[in-house]
């Protein structure tokens, strides 16, 4: 009898928890806690998803506003770091004179270096675009 009771309780708890969790019915602070835990791991996607759940059924509160501020701040920090590196790369790729342009175009070692920089530039631009998308997603959740 004890076993069956535990079994029913467990299944009910599991199903109920999953449903309540996905529907944003759990306490708002539990979503904020999970969002902050995700932020600690730098998992921005999960942090934003948990923030979305926190305000899905309830009005934004001081707590969710603070969480949103911290997530946005983290995204901005990452964007500014990537942008800083991108500026450095673009400055070093820009030839300073005619001789340097020729040297960069024809010297094999310089050409390879330039290709590597161009690849890094593309990766950084992609990273910034992803972060900007996340930032927009966060903004949309807040306004929805």
């Amino acid at each position: 009898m004890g076993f069956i009771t535990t079994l029913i309780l467990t299944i009910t708890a599991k199903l109920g928890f999953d449903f309540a969790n996905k529907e944003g019915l759990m306490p708002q602070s539990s979503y904020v806690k999970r969002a902050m835990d995700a932020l600690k791991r730098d998992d921005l996607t999960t942090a934003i998803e948990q923030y979305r759940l926190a305000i899905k059924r309830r009005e934004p509160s001081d707590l969710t506003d603070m969480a949103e501020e911290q997530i946005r701040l983290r995204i901005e920090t990452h964007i500014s770091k990537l942008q800083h590196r991108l500026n450095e790369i673009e400055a070093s790729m820009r030839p300073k004179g005619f001789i340097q342009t020729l040297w960069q175009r024809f010297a094999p070692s310089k050409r390879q270096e330039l290709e590597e920089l161009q690849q890094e530039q593309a990766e950084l631009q992609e990273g910034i675009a992803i972060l900007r998308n996340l930032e927009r997603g966060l903004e949309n959740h807040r306004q929805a």
Partner: protein
Amino acid sequence: MKRLTRTALAGGGGYLAGLLVEKGLESVIGLDFVDGIMTVGGAVLASMYVNRDVVQAAADNIQQIFGKDPLDLTEDEWNQFKAKSPKTAQLLEKALQI
């Protein structure tokens, strides 16, 4: 002696059957029995510590932006943080009674 053996065998069989059912159910529902109840309790308990987590996130952000501990911030740096994150700054000021 025969009765004792029979009881031991029945007990062992019962234990094994119970274990199989438990493990089978665990693999189906993907959750330990005790965990299932604790998860719900944990979510409620977690809310008690949430302000601490927001403060920790703010401290991590300050570290990433300014490269220093929140306690070492200058007034200018603090005002910069406050402009970007007013509500959290307010909470920190209240907590530290600045």
